[in-house]
């Protein structure tokens, strides 16, 4: 089980909000990822929140600076629309890339990326909200702003067939509230997916670790680390006690 720190990025800054909205600047992202590396984080994910809107220079500089000091994998995404976009992330230091919006709109981008970079390094990011009326999971894009026509399960099946290597699953309802992961969502997806699943959105208390499945490949943690309310060693030691296979540092 990987403990992954999730950093939402605007230019070079770490930001965080509630339910992917109301973003607030917390500090220089590189300082945070370097600190997490030294404390034993297993992986880092940079989510560029402005790439699709403006230029990518901010995230590229941040990446290049980060890989000088952080020797764990860094997954990066935000605004990847073409093979060229993905290539430029790798060129600036990404170990893995993720995509959401462009794939939902034009799924054949997945095939193109897989043909160039192989499956293992392509992560599909999924932002989902449970529809109150139909009780089905919706697939959202553009940081949770737009609802697509897709249904979660069908989308995961299609993207898997096209060759994504991993799922990064964010519950928009839970994100940033620190009230716990969306366990129903987790169980649902684990039941039918044979891709590694990273669960994101809602961690805020060590107790929340008691609810998660050992079939997950990783959990993403944002606010609790960024605001310093819970530390990486605390999380790892709790998970070890719960019987998870955790990387020793």
């Amino acid at each position, binding site marked *: 089980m990987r403990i992954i720190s999730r950093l939402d990025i605007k230019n070079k800054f770490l930001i965080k909000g509630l339910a992917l909205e109301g973003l607030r600047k917390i500090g220089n992202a590189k300082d945070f990822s370097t600190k997490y590396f030294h404390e034993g984080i297993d992986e880092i994910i940079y989510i560029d929140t402005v790439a699709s809107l403006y230029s990518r220079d901010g995230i590229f500089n941040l990446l290049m600076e980060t890989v000088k000091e952080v020797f764990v994998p860094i997954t990066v995404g935000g605004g990847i629309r073409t093979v060229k976009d993905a290539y430029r992330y790798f060129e600036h230091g990404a*170990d893995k890339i993720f995509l959401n919006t462009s794939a939902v709109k034009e799924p054949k981008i997945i095939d193109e990326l897989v*043909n160039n970079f192989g499956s293992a390094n392509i992560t599909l990011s999924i932002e989902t909200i449970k529809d109150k009326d139909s009780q089905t999971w919706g697939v959202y894009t553009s940081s949770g702003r737009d609802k697509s026509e897709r249904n979660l399960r069908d989308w995961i099946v299609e993207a898997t067939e096209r060759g994504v290597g991993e799922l990064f699953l964010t519950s928009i309802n839970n994100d940033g509230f620190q009230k716990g992961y969306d366990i129903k969502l987790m169980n649902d997806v684990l039941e039918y997916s044979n891709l590694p699943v990273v669960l994101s959105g809602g961690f805020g208390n060590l107790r929340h670790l008691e609810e998660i499945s050992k079939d997950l490949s990783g959990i993403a943690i944002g606010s609790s680390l960024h605001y310093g309310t819970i530390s990486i060693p605390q999380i790892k030691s709790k998970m070890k006690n719960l019987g998870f296979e955790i990387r020793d540092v």
Partner: protein
Amino acid sequence: MYKTYLFNTGISNLLSVDHALKKLNYDVVKIDNFIDIEEGCLVVVPGVGHFDNIMNKLSTSNFKKTDLLIKEKKIFFLGICLGMQILFENSEEGTSKGLGYFEGSVRKLSNRFNGGKHISTNVGWKNVQIKNSTLDKFNNNQFYFVHQYEAIPRNERDIFATTTLFDQSVAVGVKKDNVCGIQFHPEKSGTVGLEFLDFLIKDFCG
């Protein structure tokens, strides 16, 4: 320190390997083609990418002469992740021939591990078992993996490192004379990974 050529496959996590080697004080030269490779040096080909893509890139980058130097044991060659897979004869990922320094082929993990709870991508930190006296201190350390294909060496004696997936052994390190390949990413495996990379290169380049 050893002069180390780092090949830019055009599609790899080149910077990660570059910074790892620099942190270890290696004299790193990034190259886009193999025209001026000096004898006695180390060439590193990093991972990430598609088998056919990287083989095409080699064939258009004057690799022929270097290929001869490798076969004549005049340079050292280290492949990481996909860089290890191309050392074999062929791969199910594509139709290109591999370099063939090791006998055996590359197969999709899901051919061996499928159905039920099996996961198609091996991603994350795994214990690695090492059969090599110089690298003994790294036995059972955890390293970072991210791959969907495995190299299956025909000769057991080429294997110096293995990991366990779903209770079965998978070869993750091969070495023969001046050629070495590792499936995991030491450059992304924390401080231990960097130390391993340093020991590996020194052991291997003598």
